[in-house]
């Protein structure tokens, strides 16, 4: 199958779209970045009171990206955006169910390899990935911000899943795993090499998630 058949837009148009979307949502970026930093704080200083908050935040941005980014905007450029919208909303709903309703996704930093990997992923999602994108020509207007656009959000989610006190249900890893590869394939086809970080994170992150004791 020719993957090129699935990407009906150019790099120029995609970056222009992200720039427009960024402008539309600004200054929400500040809030999502602060919430991303809050995830790191909550994993280092766990609090019973705020136990459900990380899952609520991660769920909210998945649903927000599903509805806003894919459903309302990106679908005008790419018919396949509807599928992504569905999966992002589904992932958000799963996170709400497991993390908020059932309270099974509280954070805890135990100094293990898994925990450190999670921290690295979070920092990468918040800072490294956007800087990498800038360095590879994305431009400031189209900078990918965690919680706003899919790439860094998928990366942040891998970090989140690696830092939960108990092993998360495997169902929660499926969509981030698939989306990491789809995002990277699309990015590669239109010339966005920073997206190759995504499948790398999915592969590196999956094993610690699977290997952890429940």
């Amino acid at each position, binding site marked *: 199958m*020719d993957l*090129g*058949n699935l*990407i*009906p*837009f*150019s790099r*120029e*148009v995609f970056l*222009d*779209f992200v720039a*427009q979307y960024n402008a539309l949502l600004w200054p929400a970026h500040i809030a999502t970045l602060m919430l991303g930093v809050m995830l790191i704080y909550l994993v280092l200083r766990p609090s019973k009171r705020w136990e459900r908050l990380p899952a609520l935040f991660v769920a909210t941005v998945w649903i927000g990206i599903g509805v806003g980014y894919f459903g309302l905007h990106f679908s*005008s*450029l*790419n*018919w396949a955006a509807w599928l992504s919208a569905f999966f992002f909303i589904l992932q958000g709903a799963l996170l709400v169910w497991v993390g908020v309703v059932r309270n099974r996704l509280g954070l805890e930093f135990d100094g293990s390899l898994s925990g450190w990997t999670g921290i690295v992923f979070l920092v990468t999602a918040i800072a490294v990935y956007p800087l990498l994108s800038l360095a590879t020509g994305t431009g400031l207007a189209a900078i990918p911000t965690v919680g706003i656009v899919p790439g860094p959000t998928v990366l942040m989610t891998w970090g989140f899943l690696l830092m939960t006190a108990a092993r998360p249900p495997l169902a929660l890893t499926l969509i981030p795993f698939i989306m990491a590869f789809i995002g990277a394939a699309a990015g590669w086809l239109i010339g966005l090499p920073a997206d190759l970080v995504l499948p790398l994170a999915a592969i590196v992150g999956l094993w610690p998630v699977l290997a952890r004791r429940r």
Partner: protein
Amino acid sequence: MRSLPIDILDRRGFLTSAAACCAVAATPSLAATPAIAKRPIPSTGEVVPIVGMGSWITMNVGDDPTLRAARLKVVQAFFDEGGGMIDSSPMYGSSEEVIGHSLAKIPNTKQLFAATKVWTLSQWMGVRQMNNSFDLWRVKRFDLMQIHNLVDWEAHLETLLEWKQEGRVRYIGVTTSHGRRHDDLAEIMKTRPIDFVQFTYNMIDREAEDVLLPLAKERGIAVIINRPFQRGGLFDEFKNKPLPNWASAIDCQSWAQFFLKFVISHPAVTCAIPATTRVDHLRENMAAGRSKLPDSDMRARMLRYIDAL
């Protein structure tokens, strides 16, 4: 003279420059610009310009006003150059909407041959999608409605035959992408009353020469060729290779014209639809249709040259 850094030229721009240096090409007189060649649609005898315009990726620019203005210039240049057929699909994101936006702003669209596609499962969804295309293009009638990649083709063909009777569409066609379902398409060509087929044909992808092109000729079906440059792959492939000196004998001034003339000179081809975002490339494409085309001996020579590179 300071040389331009390669990275500020796109691949086609590079090839054009290289070809201009290498080819001993006759410059056509601008004062006596001949009209673009036209080919008849076998089912009616109506003629269409031999070079049209595709819209895959190039017209999918969303609602960005700057990019829309740039595409408007391309569409305007297309009609200024005597173009007719513009081809799109609901699969191409916002392309239909952008084309409709451009057409509404251009006064000289009398030659427009509006061609789009239906690309969805079920007859009901197809009707809905095609009705939406009328709105997006802002036209009352499509010259050509094609079933994209044979998706649910039997259901859509039923609708299209009715619509043709009613005058909502003038011609009906079926398309396929490179190398996919050629056998199925051939079967439809043999058994169904279609006016057009669309498939891939270029100097590298020549499978269509075996069955589809001869069959179209035999059955009196018009042929639209997509990907005449193999989606830019031909430019990549022959980057840094010289255009042959004898290309001037068929008025080729660039690789783009070399590739395009090969495609449109096939006797079964009605129209090729290269896509571009640039006015200069569009003019170069259109020029290929208004100058000398290779005969069968020259076509064979062109292939030998390409194969030897």
